[in-house]
């Protein structure tokens, strides 16, 4: 039997492959399986990324380097990089300012990262808020990314003495 010669009745009942309607590739009741697969992969990847961020944000990473400006000589400086469209920068600013106000020998500088792009590149600042912890000598001892609360700022300062 030549393909395409099936009657509607045969089309329903026949097991002859030439008599079946062409399967609609990739779709199931209008659902695009490729799109659904992409959605699932994106959600899994985003969940993994979010969990990683949640685990690492607010933790001090040790860095090496020194800076001869943007710090207060003789004090531990919390150098915060902020940006215009950054909600957690405000919370971090409040926490750093409070710690600087109540802890002798600690200063807080909050700068608009946009206005210091050369420093941003030199220090490898990728996002805001990022806080550099600078020893009284100007040596950079640590870097913290993400929103910080009071306890995290105090822990970060501990990196200087460690």
């Amino acid at each position, binding site marked *: 039997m030549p393909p395409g010669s099936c009657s509607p009745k045969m089309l329903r009942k026949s097991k002859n492959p030439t008599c079946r309607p062409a399967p609609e590739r990739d779709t199931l009741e209008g659902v*695009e399986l490729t799109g659904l697969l992409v*959605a699932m992969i994106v959600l899994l990847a985003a969940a993994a990324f979010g969990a990683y961020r949640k685990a690492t944000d607010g933790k001090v990473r040790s860095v090496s380097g020194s800076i001869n400006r943007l710090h207060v000589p003789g004090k531990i400086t919390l150098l915060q990089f902020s940006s215009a469209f950054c909600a957690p920068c405000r919370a971090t600013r409040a926490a750093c300012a409070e710690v600087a106000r109540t802890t002798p020998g600690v200063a807080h500088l909050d700068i608009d990262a946009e206005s210091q792009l050369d420093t941003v590149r030199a220090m490898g600042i990728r996002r805001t808020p990022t806080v550099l912890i600078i020893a009284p000598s100007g040596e950079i001892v640590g870097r913290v990314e993400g929103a910080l609360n009071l306890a995290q700022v105090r822990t970060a300062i501990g990196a200087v003495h460690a």
Partner: protein
Amino acid sequence: MLDSRGPRFAAAITTVVFILVLAFGSGWLALAQAAVFALTAFTRYGPYSLLYKRFVAPRLGPPGQFEAPQPVRFAQIVGLVFALLCAIGYLSGASLLGVIAAGFALAAAFLNAAFGFCLGCEVYLLARRVLTRGQSTAGGQ
């Protein structure tokens, strides 16, 4: 200042919308979401925020955290760009563009809803770094 749970609620709806956009390859749905982003970014009548204020907020306690509107508006504008690219892709037959744009929009919306991800914190500085790289090098010489 905004009740910071409002944008999280909106992001949760947006997440569902982009899953549906991908599942049905629907450019029209992406276009509708683009209109929602535009209304939220440029007017006081963001559909999802109205839903939140009318039906959700009264059932929750008083807001614990407030946030400034500028970061939220920035994220809505970035969302608008991706939703428009997605709609253009699907409606013009370039469905690969539609899938890619919807994928990025879904990732950002889901991260915002689930983790309070702040798009402006992540991409604004990177964009400034990249866009001014040429100028800075030229200026330094």
